[in-house]
């Protein structure tokens, strides 16, 4: 009797325990398979294996890099465009800068991006046409590089033929009149370099360098080239005042009856000072360079070129797609008396039969004074942009 009772009790106890024992599982909240209902750790916890994610081994993820957005840009414009497949990182930007200044990308190791896009002159060239490694001249004036992340249309070059900064950087390396290399050669040189493989590993987690990673790094660096600290910016922020001449010049810029520059070249609420669009501004009646038309194949686009920004004009001479104007005076004279009609000339180029807007000598001087307030001296001396 006693034995039976104990057996019953033991069985009852066993049944109670088996139907309601403490649930086993992974009880570590940091684990991938954490089970909040588990009461007893059963050793099944799984953790992210750093060597199995994103190709990164050992060095971990690259560090995000945040753009320093100027106050007026943040206030007036949508967010800058950063492609999802090329976020900005500290390692990527540093690698891009190193590549930008490195002649290793050229066919004979003598020319870098910076050879024709010099920081002293807002990353433009002081020459009308740049000379490639073979001593051959190009056909277009090297464009300055700033505020590229706000080119929402993402078309680059004077004729818009490249999509995205990454796409733009592919061209010069292989252009025969520029760096005259091949991408396999450039990539091999980088792969064999004592430093680059580790830098690409840190920036992209890549064991193998390829052309896309090269242009991604360069594009990251270029996105950091931001110019938003001109005298006129400071005037808009209430920190600095303009002279009466500069203010008058600004009025001429904004007046459809006078300069009417704002329709293409922006206004205080568009701190890019360009519409990033393509126009025929009356340079020629017969084209030697079709510009956008050569890319789209549409004759209605012949003679149209990208509107450049009016920032940093003191640094970016000579002017126009072919650098034909050495001075700002010549540019202003063009719009005043020098317009030439062609079928695709922009309707906003008014009074073409009279050559243009016919500014007086005083108006021209005032307009120039205003344009110079868009210079950003801090941009051309910024040590962050130099090697």
């Amino acid at each position: 009797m006693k034995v039976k009772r104990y057996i019953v009790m033991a069985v009852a106890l066993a049944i109670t325990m088996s139907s309601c024992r403490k649930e086993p599982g992974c009880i570590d909240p940091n684990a991938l398979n954490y089970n909040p209902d588990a009461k007893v750790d059963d050793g099944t916890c799984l953790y992210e294996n750093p060597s199995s994610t994103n190709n990164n081994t050992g060095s971990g993820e690259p560090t995000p890099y945040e753009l320093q957005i100027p106050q007026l840009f943040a206030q007036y414009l949508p967010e800058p465009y950063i492609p999802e497949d090329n976020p900005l990182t500290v390692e990527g930007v540093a690698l891009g800068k190193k590549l930008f200044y490195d002649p290793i990308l050229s066919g004979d190791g003598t020319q870098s991006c910076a050879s024709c896009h010099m920081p002293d002159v807002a990353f433009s060239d002081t020459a009308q046409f740049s000379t490639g490694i073979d001593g051959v001249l190009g056909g277009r004036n090297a464009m300055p590089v700033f505020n590229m992340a706000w080119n929402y249309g993402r078309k680059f070059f004077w004729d818009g033929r490249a999509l995205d900064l990454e796409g733009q950087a592919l061209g010069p390396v292989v252009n025969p009149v520029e760096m005259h290399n091949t991408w396999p050669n450039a990539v091999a040189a980088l792969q064999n370099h004592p430093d680059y493989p580790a830098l690409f590993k840190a920036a992209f987690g890549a064991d193998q360098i390829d052309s896309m990673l090269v242009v991604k790094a360069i594009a990251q660096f270029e996105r950091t080239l931001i110019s938003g600290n001109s005298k006129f910016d400071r005037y808009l922020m209430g920190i600095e005042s303009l002279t009466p001449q500069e203010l008058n010049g600004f009025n001429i810029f904004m007046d459809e009856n006078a300069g009417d520059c704002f329709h293409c070249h922006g206004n205080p609420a568009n701190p890019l000072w360009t519409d990033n669009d393509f126009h025929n501004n009356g340079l020629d009646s017969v084209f030697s360079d079709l510009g956008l038309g050569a890319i789209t194949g549409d004759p209605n686009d012949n003679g149209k070129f990208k509107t450049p920004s009016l920032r940093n004009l003191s640094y970016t001479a000579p002017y126009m797609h072919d650098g034909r104007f050495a001075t700002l005076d010549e540019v202003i004279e063009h719009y005043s008396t020098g317009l030439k009609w062609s079928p695709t000339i922009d309707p906003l180029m008014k009074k073409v039969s009279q050559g243009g807007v016919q500014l007086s000598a005083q108006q021209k001087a005032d307009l120039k004074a205003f344009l110079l307030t868009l210079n950003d001296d801090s941009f051309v001396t910024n040590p962050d942009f130099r090697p």
Partner: protein
Amino acid sequence: MKTLRFIMTVTVVGSIALFSSSCKKREGCTDPNAINYDSKAKVDDGSCEYPTSTTNPTTSTTAKLTFKINHLYNNQAIMFDTILYTNAAGNNHSITRLRYIISNIRLYKSNGDSVMIDGYHFVDYKGDPASDTYAPGVSIPKDNYTGIAFIFGLDSADNISNAYPDLNAANWNWPEMLGGGYHFMQFEGNFIDTTGGTTGFAYHMGTARKITPTDTIFEQNWFLARLQNSSVNITGDATVFINMNLEQWFENPHTWNLDTLNNMMMPNYAAQKLMNDNGRSVFTFGGVQ
């Protein structure tokens, strides 16, 4: 033996109590069809909740409208860049650019009330042809509406200088010296002038600046575009078609001659008022689907 039995009893009873309190069967909603179904629950505690019927489409009282604008010249869909068109004044011209902004579409009811879809829509028909379609994503009551109208441009509450980043990026600002805010329209092209040569025109509309001997006044220059015969019975999501009849910018009531009015229209007060008058017949109702 008694002591042993006592100890055993205490152990068993104590164990049962211990295990029971820390491990009772989990209570909750055990119906898989319920919103708050708890897959770990063993005992239903009556807490189950179910979705309410307002999500059922057949009982919804609202609908969403999409607006599609047809850009016509004398009832033909427009083409850019070729001198194809002749306006009421006899000017032969092309269209090279067409950008404009509409806002605050209203649907009117027979009792005089209206439903307003708050917001603006910016069209760049050449640069972004898909901008001819405006889907505000706003639900309006299903109802029998007597007519549709909208503001061409921005009214005084909305036409705030520099307020809209996307419009700033589009270089759409109207100069402060002319009243600030934004352009309402940039309608551009080329026409054959009296010499037989080609001249450009830039028909730009916005706030109208009036300069008197004593004053500078900035006049609101938007207008309400009323679509004639635009009664619609909205019973579900639908697309409303709006026709923009571009030849009307040059006529009705004022015949507009590009020879005299082709450029520098923005600071031209009289021209801005002519645009406002002519604009009222530009938009017509294209049906609903």
